[in-house]
C-alpha cells in the first residue's frame, strides 16, 4: 500500500475592506488574489483536466470569503490590476530606455501577468473566486474546510467568544458552499483541551494540530520573525511515543485529529534550508523604488545589497528540481515510516496558502510540479482526510500552536497582554447587549453589528502584528476603532438612544464592516 499524502492549505486575510488601501489594507488582499488564489485555482483546474490526482484540503477563513464575495472588492481588484499593468508598462519603457534589458523584460512580464489576470478574473472566474473554488470542490477531489469566523486565536478566548467563532465559521461556510463543513482549521493550529467539544457540537469530524502536539518533543518554529528584544518562551513537551504518521481519535471523543509532519513543513518553511530562500528565486523584500515591483533574485539571502536581476527560466528550473527533491524526501520519509511499522502511513503537510505565489513567487509552480511528481510515484498517493480515517487509535493532544515556541507566545506576551484584557471586556460588553435583540429592527441590527465588531476585535491578526512589530500602528488603530464602535453601540442601546442619528450612523458602520450580512439578522446567537 502506498503512503497517503494529505496536503492542507490554509487561506486567510484579515478584514481589510474599506479600511485603508495602501500601504496597509486592501492591497494585502489584492496581492493574495492576484499572486496566490487565482494562479493556484488555475493550476488545480489544469491538474484535474490532465487527469492527475490533485486531492487537497483547502481552508478559507470566513473573513476572506466575505471579502472575495464582495462586489466592491471585485471592482476594486479590477482597478488594482489595471493600475499594476499601467505601472509595469511605465517601468518597461523606463528600463528599456536605460538599456537595462533584464529588468525591462521582467517589467514586460508583469504587464502581461496583470493583463492576463484581469482577463481571467473577469471571464474565467466571472469575478467570483469563491464560486471558482466551489466548482473545484463540487467537481473534484478538493475538500474545502472552514476556520474561526474572524481567525481568532482560540486557546485564549472566553467560552462565548469560542462559540461565536466556531458557529459563524460553520454558518458562513454553509452559506457559500451549500454543504456542511467536515473539517475545521484551528487558526495558527492553536489547540487546547476542550476545543474538540465545541467542534463536535457543531458536527465537525476532524481538525489539524502541529506535530509536537501529538508526538511531543521540541516544536518546529515556523514563523521566525521574532522581535529582537523579546525573549521567546519555548514550551517543552514530553515525548509521547505517538506519531503523526497516523490520525488519532481524541480520547473518549468522536473526532479525529491529524498532526503535521515536521519534516514536510520544515523543508518548505525553514529560513535556513527551506526552498524559498534559494538564490535563484525572486527576492520578496527588495522592491523597485518607483513602482514597487520585484525585479531581483535572492542572490544571497543574508544581504540586501548587490541583488542580481531575476531570471524566470532559471527560477522555473529550480522550482522543478526542488519539487523532485521534495517528493524524494516524501518517499524517504514514507520508507522510514514503514520501517517503524506503519503499513500505510499518512504524511500531513500544512501551509499558509499565501506562501505560494505571494511570499514565494515560484511556490505555485513548485506545488503543481509536486502534485505531478506524486502522481508518478509508485510509493505515494495524495489523499483526503476521510480516505485515511476514521482513526483507530486514541490520543491526548498537548495544548499547542504552530507559532514560535510551540505554544501561545506569539499571540500572548508582554506586548499583547493588554489586548487580551480588552478582548475579554469586549466579550462581556456584548453579552450584556444580547437582551436588546428582541426590540425593534434597529435594536436587532445594532446587536448584530455589535457581534461583528466583537469578532473583529478578536482577530488574531492584530495580536500577531503587534507582537512582531509589523504594521503595528495599523493593527492597534483597527483594534481600538472596533472597540470604540462596540462601546458606542453598547452605550446607545443601554441608554436607549435609538434615534435617527443613531440609525444613520449604524447604517454607515454596517457599510464599513459589512460581512455575514445575509445571514446575521436571522441567525443571531
Amino acid at each position, binding site marked *: 500500500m502506498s503512503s497517503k499524502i494529505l496536503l492542507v492549505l490554509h487561506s486567510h486575510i484579515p478584514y481589510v475592506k474599506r479600511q485603508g488601501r495602501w500601504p496597509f489594507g486592501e492591497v494585502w488582499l489584492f496581492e493574495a488574489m492576484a499572486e496566490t488564489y487565482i494562479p493556484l485555482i488555475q493550476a488545480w483546474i489544469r491538474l484535474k483536466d490532465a487527469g492527475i490526482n490533485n486531492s487537497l484540503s483547502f481552508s478559507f477563513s470566513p473573513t476572506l470569503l466575505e471579502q472575495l464575495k464582495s462586489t466592491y472588492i471585485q471592482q476594486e481588484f479590477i482597478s488594482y490590476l489595471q493600475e499594476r499593468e499601467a505601472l509595469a508598462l511605465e517601468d518597461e519603457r523606463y528600463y528599456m530606455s536605460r538599456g537595462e534589458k533584464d529588468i525591462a523584460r521582467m517589467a514586460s512580464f508583469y504587464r502581461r501577468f496583470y493583463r492576463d489576470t484581469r482577463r481571467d478574473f473577469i471571464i474565467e472566474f466571472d469575478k467570483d473566486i469563491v464560486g471558482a473554488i466551489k466548482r473545484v470542490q463540487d467537481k473534484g477531489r478538493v475538500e474545502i474546510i472552514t476556520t474561526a469566523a474572524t481567525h481568532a486565536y482560540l486557546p485564549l478566548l472566553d467560552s462565548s467568544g469560542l462559540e461565536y467563532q466556531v458557529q459563524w465559521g460553520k454558518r458562513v461556510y454553509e452559506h457559500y458552499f451549500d454543504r456542511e463543513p467536515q473539517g475545521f482549521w484551528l487558526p495558527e493550529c492553536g489547540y487546547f483541551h476542550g476545543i474538540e467539544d465545541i467542534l463536535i457540537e457543531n458536527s465537525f469530524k476532524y481538525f489539524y494540530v502541529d506535530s509536537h502536539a501529538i508526538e511531543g518533543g521540541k516544536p518546529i518554529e515556523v514563523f521566525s520573525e521574532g522581535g*529582537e*528584544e523579546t525573549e521567546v518562551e519555548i514550551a517543552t513537551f514530553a515525548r509521547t511515543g505517538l506519531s503523526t504518521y497516523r490520525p488519532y481519535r481524541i480520547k473518549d471523543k468522536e473526532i479525529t485529529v491529524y498532526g503535521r509532519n515536521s519534516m514536510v513543513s520544515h523543508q518548505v518553511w525553514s529560513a535556513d534550508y527551506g526552498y524559498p530562500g534559494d538564490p535563484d528565486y525572486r527576492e520578496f523584500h527588495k522592491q523597485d523604488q518607483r513602482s514597487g515591483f520585484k525585479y531581483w533574485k535572492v542572490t544571497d539571502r543574508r544581504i540586501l545589497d548587490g541583488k542580481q536581476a531575476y531570471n524566470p527560466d532559471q527560477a522555473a528550473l529550480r522550482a522543478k528540481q526542488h519539487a523532485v527533491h521534495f517528493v524524494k524526501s516524501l518517499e524517504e520519509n514514507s520508507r522510514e515510516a514503514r520501517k517503524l511499522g506503519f503499513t500505510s502511513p499518512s504524511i500531513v503537510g500544512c501551509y499558509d496558502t499565501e506562501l505560494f505565489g505571494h511570499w514565494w513567487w515560484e511556490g505555485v509552480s513548485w506545488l503543481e510540479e509536486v502534485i505531478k511528481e506524486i502522481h508518478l510515484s509508485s510509493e505515494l498517493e495524495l489523499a483526503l482526510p476521510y480516505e485515511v480515517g476514521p482513526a483507530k487509535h486514541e490520543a491526548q493532544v498537548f495544548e499547542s500552536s504552530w507559532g514560535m515556541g510551540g505554544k501561545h507566545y506569539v499571540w500572548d506576551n508582554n*506586548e499583547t497582554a*493588554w*489586548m487580551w*484584557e480588552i478582548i475579554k*471586556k469586549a466579550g462581556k460588553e456584548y453579552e450584556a447587549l444580547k437582551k436588546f435583540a428582541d426590540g425593534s429592527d434597529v435594536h436587532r441590527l445594532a446587536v448584530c453589528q455589535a457581534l461583528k465588531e466583537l469578532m473583529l476585535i478578536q482577530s488574531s491578526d492584530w495580536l500577531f502584528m503587534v507582537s512582531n512589530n509589523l504594521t503595528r500602528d495599523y493593527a492597534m488603530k483597527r483594534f*481600538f476603532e472596533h472597540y*470604540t464602535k462596540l462601546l458606542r453601540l453598547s*452605550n446607545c442601546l443601554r441608554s436607549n438612544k435609538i434615534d435617527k442619528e443613531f440609525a444613520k450612523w449604524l447604517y454607515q458602520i454596517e457599510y464599513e464592516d459589512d460581512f455575514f450580512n445575509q445571514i446575521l439578522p436571522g441567525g443571531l446567537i
Partner: protein
Amino acid sequence: MKVLLFSWEYPPHMFGGLGQHVFDLSRFMAKQGAEIHIITPRVENYPDYQEENGVHIHRVGSSYLEGENFKSWTFRFNSDAIREAVNINSRIGGFDVIHAHDWLVAYAGRAVTKIFEIPLVTTIHATEHGRNLGLHNRMQMEINEIEKNLALEADRVICCSQYMQDEITSLFGRPRNDIVIIPNGVDPDVFLPIPENSRFNISEEDKVIVFLGRLVPEKGVWYLLNSFPQILAEVPQARLYIGGKGPLLAELKRLTQKLGLEDNVVFTGFIYHEERNFIYHKARVAVFPSLYEPFGIVALEAMATRTPVIVGDVGGLADIVEDGVTGLKVTPANEEELVRAITRVLNDQILADKLCNNASNMIASVYNWEVIARSTIRIYEQALEQKGKKLFNLG
C-alpha cells in the same frame, strides 16, 4: 463649545510640565465659557469625578505603578479613556472637539474622533526623537511612530515653539501650515505665596544661582556645576541651588565632592509651590543651560518671579529669550560663556533689573494664559469649521 481633553498628566498626577500646562489651559478656557472635560488616570484618594475651577475632571483606569510595563499600562488607560469618552459624549449631547496631549493618549484621541466624527486637535509637547537625541531602541521607534500618526491624523496640530514646529515638519512630514504655534503660559499669581519659615537658610550676602529641572543630561546641569569653581573665584558669595531629581543626581553629587564644593552647592530635591517660590525670591539669577528644550517653561516661571534668566541657546528657550533684552543666551555646553554670563548678571545690578523688567512685561503680554486659552479656542473653531466642510463635501 464642549471640549474633551485627554491627558495622562493632570494634578496631582505630575511628572513633567505637561500636567501644569493642561491644568492651566483647561481652567482658563473654562473661564472663557467653554465646557471643558478632562479624562486622566486615576489617582489614589482622589475622586473619579470632580469639578474644579469650572473644569470637569474624570479619572479612569488604574494609577501607574512603578515597575509595571509602561506601554501596556498606557494602552489599557487608552481603552478606559475611550469607554469614559463614549459615555460622557452621549450624556452631554456630543463634544465639539477633542484635544489629545502627546502620544500617551494618541489611540484614544484617534479612535473616538474617528468613530464619532469629531475634529481632533493635538498638542505635541515634545518628541521621542528630540528627547533622546535620536531613536535608539524598539520602544523609542514605536513611540516615534505613534507620534507621527497622531501628528498626521489630527485636524490641527499645536506646538509651543518655532523649534517644535520645525521638528514636527521634518520628522513627521506634516506641512508647516497645519501646525500652529501657541506658546506655553505662566500665571504670575502662582509664584507669589512664600512660606513663613523656609527649610532653606539663605543669608542676605549669599548670591544665589538657581537651576530647576529634571536631572538628566539634556538639561545641561552638569556643565553648570563643573564651571562653578570659576564663578566662585570671581564671586566668592555665590551659592548654587540645584532643584529637581533624576538619574544624574548621584553623578552630580560625586562631582560636587570632587570639586570640593559641598559648602557652596545645595541639592534641594524636588521642590514646588512655596519652597520653589522662596528660592526664586532669594535668587539673583536662574540658569537653564539646556542642550535640548522643546519649550522651556522653567525660564518663563523664573521670569514671572522677577529673576533674571540665562539659558542655553537652543529649542524653545532660544525663542523665549532675546539676548541682552529679556535674558542672556549661551552656547549649549560652553562653560566659558556660562561663567561670563553668570558673573555679568551677579555683578551688574542695572543689567539684572533691566532683564527682569523686560521679561516681566513680555510674560504679561505674550505668555498670558488668557491669551493662550483664547488662541486655543480659536483653533478648535477652525478645526470644527474644517471638519464640517469635509463632511459636507463627502455627504
